[in-house]
């Protein structure tokens, strides 16, 4: 199978010129991203995410290992043809207009003049900047820069979109608009590789994630698997003390809150037995359901345990 992104033992060591000290920013990362997937890359500051992305784009050369994009070594020019990239702290030339900037990056992507002329107005409309194409980028707000940056990444209809904090500085409406654009692209089969600090955004949008910590992959998998049930919660009212003590014996945790009794079980069987007991004592059951972890909880647990 040809992966959208495939890395094997990818390592980047930075050495200081005048001393023997070295820093392993990325330490043997092996990762596979299937085509058409939405993949989130997470990690605390300094974990090595940016260096990893830069090696995918050949901005940085690996010390060891390799990275491939759709089967092509990232050190080759051809590997970058299917990639659209939006960097985090981008600095677009302020002397250009929105149209001029898209035209420049479109031409660098190898698009001919006719294709660029057709594509640019479409993209400006798509990102909500239809009226701003002839305005100099120096006058754009942070949110507008993100939008035109996204348009720039989409100009040559890439098969792989690498986005670094795409909704940074964008208002909630714009954020929703960006998410809609990305969802439409996902439906078209575009692979989306998202590097974001907004865990809620990654959780709602990405199918798979990898958490990088200290240059290594600390955790990787499908979001649904990683956040999957850490237990079953039952919430009831007017629970007599003797029953509460009985339930407590088999529960993971329990708590009282304003007359409501909440109890968490490891498995479904224990939870069902508790419901039977509560019904037998005619205690009103307020809530019952599987408890999922948020991606944030998974992230913090992973980072703190390493």
């Amino acid at each position, binding site marked *: 199978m040809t992966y959208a992104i495939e890395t094997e033992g990818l390592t980047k060591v930075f050495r200081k010129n005048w001393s023997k000290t070295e820093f392993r920013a990325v330490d043997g990362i092996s990762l596979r991203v299937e085509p058409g997937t939405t993949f989130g890359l997470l990690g605390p500051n300094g974990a090595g995410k940016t260096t990893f992305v830069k090696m995918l784009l050949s901005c940085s*050369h690996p010390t060891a290992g390799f990275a491939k994009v759709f089967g092509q070594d990232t050190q080759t020019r051809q590997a*970058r043809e299917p990639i659209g*990239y939006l960097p985090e702290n981008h600095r677009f*030339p302020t*002397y250009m207009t929105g149209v001029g900037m898209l035209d*420049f990056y479109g031409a660098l992507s190898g698009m001919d003049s006719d294709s660029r002329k057709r594509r640019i107005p479409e993209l400006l409309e798509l990102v909500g900047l239809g009226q701003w194409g002839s305005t100099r980028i120096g006058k754009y707000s942070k949110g507008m820069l993100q939008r035109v940056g996204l348009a720039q990444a989409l100009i040559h209809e890439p098969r792989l979109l690498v986005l670094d904090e795409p909704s940074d500085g964008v208002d909630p409406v714009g954020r929703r608009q960006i998410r809609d654009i990305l969802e439409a692209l996902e439906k078209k089969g575009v692979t989306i590789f998202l590097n974001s600090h907004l865990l809620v955004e990654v959780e709602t949008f990405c199918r798979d994630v990898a958490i990088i910590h200290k240059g290594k992959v600390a955790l990787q998998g499908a979001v649904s698997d990683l956040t999957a049930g850490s237990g079953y919660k039952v919430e009831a009212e007017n629970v007599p003390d003797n029953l509460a003590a009985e339930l407590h014996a088999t529960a993971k945790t329990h708590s009282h809150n304003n007359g409501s009794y909440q109890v968490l079980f490891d498995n479904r069987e224990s939870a069902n037995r508790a419901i039977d007991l509560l019904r037998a004592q005619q205690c009103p059951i307020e809530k019952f359901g599987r408890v999922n972890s948020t991606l944030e909880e998974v992230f913090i647990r992973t980072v703190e345990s390493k």
Partner: protein
Amino acid sequence: MSNKKVIQTLALVVDTFREAMARKIIWGFFGCSTALILFFLLLVKIDVVQGAIATMSLFGKTGQAQDMSKMVTTVHAVISNLLYGFGMLLAILASAGLIPTIFEPGRIELLLSKPVSRTHILLGRYLGNLLVIAANIFYPVIAVWLIFGIKTGVWTPGFLYSSLLTVFMFGVYLSIIVIVGVQWESAVVATMITFAVIVISIILNFQSGLERLLTSDWSRDVVRVLYYILPKGVDIGKMMTNIIKGQPIDSWMPFWSTALFGLCCLGGGLYIFEKKNY
């Protein structure tokens, strides 16, 4: 060169022009050139009506048609040297930032993420920068050559050839900006080092006088080696004057050794750029 590469090269060149236009110093250069052209346009026009067809006056001096050729050649030489000296200074100041700015964080990553090789990016930028300055040099040279040619009937091609030498010399200085810019990513450092090389090469031009001042053999050898290695701006300037005056060139060594220096700097810049991490 494939169609894609042509599109990419054009994009890099046009982008350099756009960025140059956004800098006021290029407009200053253009303004100076226009003022120079207008000065000669108006001056020649006024003096022509004062004389007969066989005799004309320039700068208030009347001469025979035979002297006219000498007078025009002298004016050409003055303008060439003005462009070669003052123009070069403006050109270096105007374009010193054009190469290092592409290495700014947030901009270089975007350029490198495109399907363009690093060598192509840097050479495209170099070519764009060279063309910006070439346009600014050819503009006054061609205009002044036409003004004097039409008004006096003296059409010496040497003046046009001399502008090629000015562009060549700028190309060599630009290669210093490239290697320094790639290494230190600073327009200020690139400008300082380029000017330092120019000053040192001017001092080294007095090689024989310098050698008399030095007491040890090794220091004389150092001066001699440096003279041959560094660009020979003064010698190229002399070659330029000879070309305008239609005089023979004694030696082409200053030209090829300067070209070699430029190629080495450009090659070094490309090598460092290829290896660098951003």
